[in-house]
């Protein structure tokens, strides 16, 4: 690609970037000596304080899909994008903290698949471990690909250079310090994102005349698209029907698909985030981890979605911040109505370049780089753990000395990064990274929450029930995707490859309904097969199932410090946010 880069960096920008990487590598180096056993490497020796695991819990998910994808969705859908947080993530985070952490942490499982092994059986664990391992490599590869492409476009850096250098840095600090190193760098990256994006939002709002000015401009933008005046600035307006809101989803699909199935599937069962809580130094710290994460999480829409909305407000029909999407021929792409298609993924980065002078520009771009890299590192640490404990130790070499598994963890780190690089080169040609990832999550994660919920709260659920429920849930998701199509798409990756039985108003609606179908299939099949097979005796399920486990005793803890009190505050705040931006 011989495009002219959008901007170039000066010495101060490079100096800011260099200082950040010195600290990142320094952390890895400093932790190298204390990483002596496989438990240190994969579980941080279960020794971290809750504020660290909490911010890492949030930050592990804060990769490319979050910062770039949420900005893109902000420009595409407006404040309704915040449903991913206020309707989706927060309730799920509260649930995992209060109801699921006692089993994850209390069972002393070293990974989420290992919990499935303890609760159900080996085959359920293996199915989950393999699908999860594939997904982490894929996510990490997408993150690298997006980064390479973005920095090529913005700064003219070569794709190979960005991918290889970032891979080497991530490899160096994860190899040296394992999970602790990844977690520490995730927390560092959290502060970089917060401090890199807060001034962007401040300057952006100043530019458009504050929230009032933003609302006025977006009301105009909504009118040109034929939407209701408040479509971009109200999260709940027009949600009664798919045709009257920019998401193209009706409230039921949103609440059940995103709010219940997808978000609970991700935040409650994805080992990438749960691994952070499992590294906490005590049960109470593990339960507080998702709650601590929820507080900044509910404010993140203002940091990552607002820049997209501001970019849209500053983009008129004659161009502006968000550039047109280019076809392979080099001409701007047009939609069916003849309007220019905007490249929403560039909304946030272009705003950064437009508003930040040199110096701050270095800080903003470093924050972006940091988010790409910690997204990669999070996936790699989850991958090396699942590979070593759930695949290698349980199927390939069972009773090796601990040093061997530590060695294997480091080898898996190298292997995982090599596979991610390969995936980065394979990935491509997708409009919105977020929607592709949501699609993958819908296939793999949606049935998962059903399996965990049944496993934790219904002692009659059996291993055969869980396995076949999970397998049929994933197949159900694929079948549903193959038989439906979003409005205006051609059959293929978007769905409909088995024939089109139903057309959804938008891709998002289709994704949410795929999740609902997967979840329902998994519940029904798991229950039917469980009732036909022999349950495990109660004695074996102590600590693994709700009704057979002692409840955590919080009476000794001062009222204000109890997880339940904290959780109530979080829920009240998120309801308030929904009401303010209704």
């Amino acid at each position, binding site marked *: 690609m011989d495009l002219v880069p959008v901007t170039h960096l000066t010495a*101060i920008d490079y*100096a*800011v970037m260099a*200082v*950040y990487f010195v*600290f990142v590598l*320094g*952390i890895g180096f*400093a*932790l190298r*000596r*204390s990483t*002596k*056993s496989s*438990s*240190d490497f994969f579980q*941080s*020796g*279960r*020794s*971290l304080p809750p504020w*660290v695991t909490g911010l890492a819990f949030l930050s592990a998910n804060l990769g490319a899909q979050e910062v770039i994808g949420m900005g893109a969705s902000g420009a595409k859908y407006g404040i309704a994008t915040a449903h991913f947080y206020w309707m989706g993530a927060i309730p799920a985070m509260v649930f995992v903290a209060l109801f699921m952490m006692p089993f994850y942490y209390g069972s002393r499982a070293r990974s989420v698949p290992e919990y499935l092994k303890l609760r159900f059986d080996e085959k359920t664990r293996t199915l989950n471990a393999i699908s999860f391992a594939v997904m982490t490599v894929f996510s990490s590869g997408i993150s690298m690909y997006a980064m390479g492409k973005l920095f090529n476009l913005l700064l003219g850096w070569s794709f190979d250079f960005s991918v290889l250098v970032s891979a080497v840095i991530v490899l160096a600090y994860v190899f040296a310090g394992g999970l*602790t190193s990844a977690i*520490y760098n995730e*927390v*560092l990256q959290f*502060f970089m994102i917060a*401090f890199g994006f807060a*001034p962007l939002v401040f*300057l952006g709002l*100043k*530019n458009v005349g504050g929230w009032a000015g933003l609302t006025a401009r977006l009301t105009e933008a909504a009118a040109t698209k034929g939407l209701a005046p408040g479509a971009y600035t109200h999260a709940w307006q027009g949600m009664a029907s798919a045709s009257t809101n920019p998401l193209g989803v009706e409230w039921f699909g949103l609440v059940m698909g995103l709010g219940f199935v997808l978000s609970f599937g991700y935040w409650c069962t994805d080992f990438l985030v749960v691994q952070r809580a499992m590294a906490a130094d005590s049960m109470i710290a593990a339960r507080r981890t998702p709650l601590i994460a929820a507080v900044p999480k509910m404010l993140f829409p203002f940091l990552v979605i607002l820049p997209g909305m501001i970019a849209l407000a500053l983009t008129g029909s004659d161009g502006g911040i968000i550039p047109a999407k280019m076809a392979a021929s080099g001409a701007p792409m047009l939609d069916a109505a003849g309007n220019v298609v905007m490249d929403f993924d560039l909304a946030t980065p272009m705003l950064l370049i*437009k*508003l*930040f*002078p*040199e*110096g*701050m520009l270095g*800080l903003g771009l470093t924050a972006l780089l940091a988010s790409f890299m910690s997204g990669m590192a999070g996936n790699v640490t989850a991958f090396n753990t699942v590979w070593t404990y759930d695949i290698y130790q349980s199927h390939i070499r069972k009773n090796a000395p601990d040093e061997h598994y530590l060695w294997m963890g480091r080898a898996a780190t190298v292997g995982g990064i090599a596979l991610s690089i390969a995936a980065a080169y394979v990935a491509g040609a997708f409009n919105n990274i977020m929607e592709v990832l949501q699609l993958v999550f819908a296939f793999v994660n949606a049935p998962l929450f059903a399996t965990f919920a049944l496993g934790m709260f219904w002692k009659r659920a059996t291993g055969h029930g869980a396995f076949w429920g999970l397998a049929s849930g994933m197949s159900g998701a694929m079948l549903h995707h193959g038989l439906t199509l979003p409005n205006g798409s051609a059959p293929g990756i978007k769905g409909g490859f088995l024939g089109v039985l139903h057309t959804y108003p938008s891709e998002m609606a289709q994704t949410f309904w795929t999740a609902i179908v997967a979840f329902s299939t998994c519940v029904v099949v798991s229950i039917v097969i469980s009732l036909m097979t022999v349950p495990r005796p109660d004695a074996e399920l102590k600590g693994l199932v709700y009704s057979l486990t002692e409840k955590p005793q919080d009476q000794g803890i001062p009222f204000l410090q109890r997880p339940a009190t904290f959780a109530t505050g979080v829920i009240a705040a998120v309801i308030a946010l929904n009401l303010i931006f209704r």
Partner: protein
Amino acid sequence: MSGEASLDLRLPIGGLFVTLGIMLAGYGLVTGSNTEMYVKSAGININLIWGVVMLITGVIFLALAKRGAARG
């Protein structure tokens, strides 16, 4: 298991923010008279202001780390 984490995370966060804060604020001071450069940021010397904010944040983290170390 070695258990005890060997590095207080507040130290590198504090160190990074102090370093970046000094760099940005210093750069803001040097370039303060260059009005053309700050047209982008609506006439605000964002390097100076934000550099100072980051410096203060960094100092707070270092102070917390020091207090934590003193407590043992």
